[in-house]
């Protein structure tokens, strides 16, 4: 029995697990470890109109149960991605979620329009939340009006479903979510990394050349759960949940908070087999929990709190 297949706008997924954008390149590296067709989908690395060299190194730093990164949207640019990266992925039976980024609305529109022509791209993910590029996407992510306007502009040039990847670095994430839903977004991805910093106490220098970076990994999971719990009750579009997923139990928690699929980021770095292992573990766990289909769990925790009798004894 298939307990795992889920269908989201544009994404017909065998299971609800996809690698998160920026944590999987364009798949080539991980294809050396396993068949990418086992994945529910792949969120490919952000594409910008031009080639980006990214930030100076060091670009990663480890923290308690997490990591900071400041890669800076390094990518070979839309032309190269269309010519060399996406065609290579055609041999895999897996839908692609194309992450797009830019400096201006025009940048997003240009990349959205061009990448929509790729035969194996099934949906777009607007990256309005990268914390590592100054005065760029993030301004769209922190202003509900701008986020809505960008969503409308992209929807106007592409027939593909559009997911908006929300930033957790805001006071009212539900406000941004409601605004992009109103503007026609087909789904949400949440959350992107939380802005953070680490200092080398021997020198007093920040470890990252960019000084600040985006925090990911298990440390951010409770924040993601809270935000998805809150946002999913405000909107009616599906949410791809992400933020520190390391186990099948984590995936169940994201679903119960209100997610309809999940993306796995940092865990791929700790273990290249993270995604296929999670898919297997998730199936086993659902069987154990006697859940007949994963989608039954979406939003199970909404407006729910009961005293836990077993723990109060």
């Amino acid at each position, binding site marked *: 029995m298939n307990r795992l297949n889920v269908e989201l706008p544009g994404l017909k997924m065998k299971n609800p697990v996809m690698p998160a954008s920026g944590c999987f390149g364009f798949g080539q590296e991980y294809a050396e470890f396993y068949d990418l067709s086992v994945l529910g989908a792949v969120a490919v690395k952000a594409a910008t109109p031009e080639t980006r060299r990214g930030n100076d190194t060091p670009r*990663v730093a480890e923290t308690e149960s997490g990591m900071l990164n400041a890669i800076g949207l390094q990518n070979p640019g839309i032309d190269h991605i269309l010519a060399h990266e996406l065609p290579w992925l055609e041999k895999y039976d897996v839908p692609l979620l194309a992450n797009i980024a830019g400096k201006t609305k025009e940048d997003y529109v240009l990349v959205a329009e061009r990448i929509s022509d790729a035969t194996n791209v099934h949906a777009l993910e607007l990256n309005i939340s990268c914390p590592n590029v100054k005065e760029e996407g993030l301004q769209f992510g922190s202003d509900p009006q701008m986020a809505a306007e960008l969503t409308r502009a992209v929807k106007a040039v592409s027939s593909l479903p559009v997911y908006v990847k929300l930033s957790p670095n805001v006071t009212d994430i539900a406000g941004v979510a409601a605004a992009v839903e109103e503007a026609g977004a087909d789904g949400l991805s949440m959350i992107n990394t939380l802005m953070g910093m680490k200092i080398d106490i021997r020198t007093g220098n920040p470890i990252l050349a960019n000084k600040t970076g985006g925090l990911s990994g*298990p440390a951010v999971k409770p924040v993601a759960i809270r935000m998805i719990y809150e946002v999913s009750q405000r909107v009616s579009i599906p949410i791809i949940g992400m933020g520190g997923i390391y186990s099948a139990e984590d995936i169940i928690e994201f679903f119960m908070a209100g997610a309809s699929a999940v993306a796995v980021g940092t865990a791929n770095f700790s273990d290249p087999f993270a995604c296929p292992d999670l898919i297997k573990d998730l199936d086993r766990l659902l069987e154990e929990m006697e859940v007949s289909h994963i989608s039954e769990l979406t939003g199970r925790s909404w407006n729910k709190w009961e005293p836990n009798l077993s723990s109060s004894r």
Partner: protein
Amino acid sequence: MKKENLTVISQENLAPRIYRMKLKGESVRSMLTPGQFVHLKLGGRHPLLRRPISICDVEEDQLSIIYRVEGQGTSMLAEKKDGDTVDALGPLGEGFPITPSDDTALLIGGGVGIPPLYYLAKQLYDKGKRVKIILGFRRQEEMFLTEAFSRFGEVFVTTENGSCGTRGFVTDAIAKAGEFDVFYTCGPKPMLRAVEKAAGTNGYISLEERMGCGVGACLACVCDLKEAETDKSYVKACKDGPVFQAGEVVL
């Protein structure tokens, strides 16, 4: 490239904070190229990332690594006892090429950059090459592997405080080592820069970089190319390296 829980068969303290660990497993048989590395997972969710450790020697299904205890990951590695296992991914990266036309090789290692040169020295020696080795340490108490290297060729030691061998840095011993056709070096970046300047262009350098995934996906360990090609201006230390031709990347 495989992921396997390798079994610890020995662990010894070679110098202050420097340990040699021997590990056993089937995937070790594929670790044939010196200069490649293994990516070790220690702990569950903290530390979160794997630790890249260079391959020091391989004998059948036995791997030797030499590492310095720097932080939590390497401390956990040092606590491993015989019979414990270590989650290892490897071999990763591109190692040192051995060129048939070069007869005399000069190996230049500094600190924990020394271990990968051991496996290289052994292979060069087995191929009948003449091997000269410069090993740089801060002080005599921190020296390791100098005896072992002498099996393969003449060893020149430098110490920063002059407590053994030539006083100064590895570059201070290059003239003493005499002529060579090709050089191979591994150590901290300032050392690599100095060696590149002093030893010419026919050589290979192995970079130490902070890595995320170790397999080429996360772009944490990129280095700029000196002569940028049109569609590629950078390389990844984990996947395209850690070994590069001298003068290829910006140090």
